[in-house]
């Protein structure tokens, strides 16, 4: 064996209908690139055929540009990684002008991940997104790496509603998905508060708050002390959370957390996810999402399923 291209399509995708609709948005398949792991879509050009993806979530966007966090931003664990990027992004206006036209042209559904420090900042950002060509907003109330805002809105039902409702009002034309934090003490209560405040869908999990210490410098690895853990290490916990969330709310759920291969993706779809997001796995193995799409198609063919929803066991 000398060389084999990894992203060979093994199934004629046109034979299996993988499409799914979430909050009115059509995805050609239920596999979405997770926020913060896929840039603005063009970075992976050449490595995979980006047009085959169901959707792409942008890097977390804020009203104004952000520099992100200082110090080390990545730390590998035995089955995943911790990150402390801190929402570095060029600001929504620059995203809309410089990145969105190209991202839009790639083909997959475009989900803008919206973050902020204050309710006002979130709402102003939502207005800009409402007047753009994006397909959906993923409201990020679960980033563990910023001091103000971010995850603090996602830990408590009242705090969550206090930002979901203004964003809902500020972006009346866009489907609204709220990305939840696994660090919330009562996730079901936060989820219900989001739905009551106008969320059309929920995505979870964001990263788990975690930390590492450098035994040589005798200091925490990250300037913020803690960081967000992702990857296979969190997958069984994330799966349990998706399963439980399915019982708590009626809106569609987009599940994620360490999904690395077809088997992982099918578990999340069986647990009640309408679609799944893949993040860190793309770092470890760039063709992961393409292999998962093909794997889901093969599984559906084997089981004579005509729609991805039939995979669910809920």
């Amino acid at each position, binding site marked *: 064996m000398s060389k084999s291209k990894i*992203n060979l399509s093994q199934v004629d995708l046109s034979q299996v209908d993988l499409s799914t609709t979430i909050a009115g948005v059509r995805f050609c398949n239920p596999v979405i690139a997770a926020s913060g*792991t896929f*840039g603005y879509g063009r970075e992976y050009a050449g490595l995979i055929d980006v047009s085959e993806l169901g959707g792409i979530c942008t890097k977390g966007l804020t009203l104004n540009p952000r520099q992100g966090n200082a110090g080390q931003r*990545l730390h590998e664990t*035995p089955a995943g990684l911790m990150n402390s990027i801190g929402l570095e992004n060029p600001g929504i206006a620059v995203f809309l002008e410089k990145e969105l036209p190209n991202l839009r042209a790639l083909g997959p559904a475009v989900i803008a991940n919206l973050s902020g420090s204050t309710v006002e900042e979130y709402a102003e950002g939502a207005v800009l997104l409402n007047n753009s060509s994006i397909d959906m907003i993923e409201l990020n109330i679960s980033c563990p790496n910023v001091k103000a805002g971010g995850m603090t809105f996602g830990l408590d039902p009242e705090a969550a509603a206090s930002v979901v409702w203004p964003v809902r009002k500020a972006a009346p034309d866009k489907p609204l998905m709220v990305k939840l934090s696994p660090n919330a003490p009562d996730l079901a209560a936060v989820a219900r508060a989001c739905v009551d405040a106008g969320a059309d869908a929920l995505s979870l999990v964001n990263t788990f708050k975690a930390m590492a210490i450098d035994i040589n410098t005798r200091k925490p690895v990250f300037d913020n002390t803690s960081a967000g853990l992702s990857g296979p290490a969190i997958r069984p916990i994330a799966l349990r959370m998706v399963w439980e969330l399915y019982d708590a709310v009626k809106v569609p759920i987009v599940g994620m957390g360490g999904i690395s291969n077809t088997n992982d993706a099918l578990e999340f779809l069986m647990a009640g996810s309408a679609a799944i997001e893949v993040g860190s796995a793309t*770092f470890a193995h760039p063709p992961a999402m393409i292999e998962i799409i093909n794997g889901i198609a093969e599984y559906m063919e084997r089981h004579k399923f005509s729609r991805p929803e039939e995979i669910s066991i809920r």
Partner: protein
Amino acid sequence: MNDQKQSLLSILISSAVINQEIFRLDFIWKGPVPKPGQFFLIKPKRSAVFLARPISVALWQSDTVRFLIAKRGRGTEELLAMHLNEEVELTGPLGNCWEDFFPPENTQKPIALLGGGIGVAPLEGLPREFPKYDFDFYAGFRTGFKTDEERYGILGPAAFNAQNLIIATEDGSEGKKGRITNFLDPTKYAAVYACGPTAMLRAVTEKCKASGTPCYISMEKHMACGVGACLGCTVKTKNGNRRCCADGPIFPAEELIFE
């Protein structure tokens, strides 16, 4: 944006231990031809670490690519333990290249290549690929080579195809005694290309700034995606954060802010 990159399943065809710290791996590579200064993400197919490791390409031929790697942690130890014919996932070539910063072809002065330790690796391909330019090669190490295998394994053809080869060791056991930057006179050169430990990079930046010589540095950072998507490897510059993997790994020294 560099679109000339691929993820390919390949195999290890040759490996050699060069000394206690450094080893060499050759893989089959039938993807886009790399340029000196670019890097690959390398991960054995059977691996116990999560992320691929970013390693600068040292040399290549039509169907193979060679890496000179320093043992640093679990990821590089796993690479060292690879068997011949073992499968590996290679992603690349990634990042910018020295060529992006070449002085005009009619320049009268040579280019200085400055490598500290394993930092010689990303400079290896330059003299072979660009015979039109004259290169002097400066290589600094803590201590000297114990065998010829070590000498030729680490220095390779870049050093021996250079007009002048200047070696310095901190203990004086090989070449000149002292830090390699002490023996570099930037005024003799059209540009200085450097890679190595931060202390060396800081010193060469200062020296080149004082003499007004353009200096370009290949930086090293922990990486996750390697393609500019995750922003995990940002380098601080006077123009804000830049991505080591996609905007670099080579940056003009005058822009860098060393932490």
